[in-house]
């Protein structure tokens, strides 16, 4: 689970690198060879996207000063 913005950025970077690889392999490999090797990348990409979504949708803790201003 992503705990902070640094981990979020690291996950984004890793995701981008793996997506580049998948895009590149689409061009390098035959359709059958691509299909044979793609599943692991897709699972990894899905796992990272789920982590990113979960982090982005997690509510931020509201500081007391913000709460005071709102009331």
């Amino acid at each position, binding site marked *: 689970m992503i705990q902070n913005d*640094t981990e979020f950025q690291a996950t984004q970077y890793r995701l981008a690198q*793996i997506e*580049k*690889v998948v895009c*590149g392999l689409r061009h390098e*490999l035959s359709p059958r*060879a691509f299909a*044979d090797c793609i*599943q692991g990348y897709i*699972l990894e990409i899905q796992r990272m996207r789920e982590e990113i979504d979960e982090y982005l949708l997690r509510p931020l803790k509201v500081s007391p000063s913000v709460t005071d201003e709102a009331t």
Partner: protein
Amino acid sequence: MPVPPFESGGDLPEGLHQADLTEFFMRFGRGTAQRERVAMQLRQAFELVRPLQIVARVVVWGSFVTAKPAPADADILWVTRPTFDRSQLPVQVEVLFDPVVAKRLYGIDVLSIPEDSAYLATLLDGLSVTRAFTKRGLVEVTL
């Protein structure tokens, strides 16, 4: 050159560190029952693949190549030779290239890439990124 010691955070220093099978399991296959269990499954996988000469090398990444005492599993990248053809493999070996079945039977997360791919370096770069957005070392095992 032997695989270097872990850094203070428990990761290997950045880089692709080489090891043969003996050194790899001496270094990473001992210490706790859980680590030994994961190592045994990895060894089985390597022994199935090695005689077929379809894999040029294996890159191991993730918690198995850190100081973590009880890694849940192992993450491996098969770097395949140009002659690699998954459809020609015996089923006992073919499952090691199927991420879902390899995970279920051997507890390993697998990726594969041809050794001549121009994207191998990009992949290794992505796999070496830590949650803290630093780089950690990977281990390349020669089968």
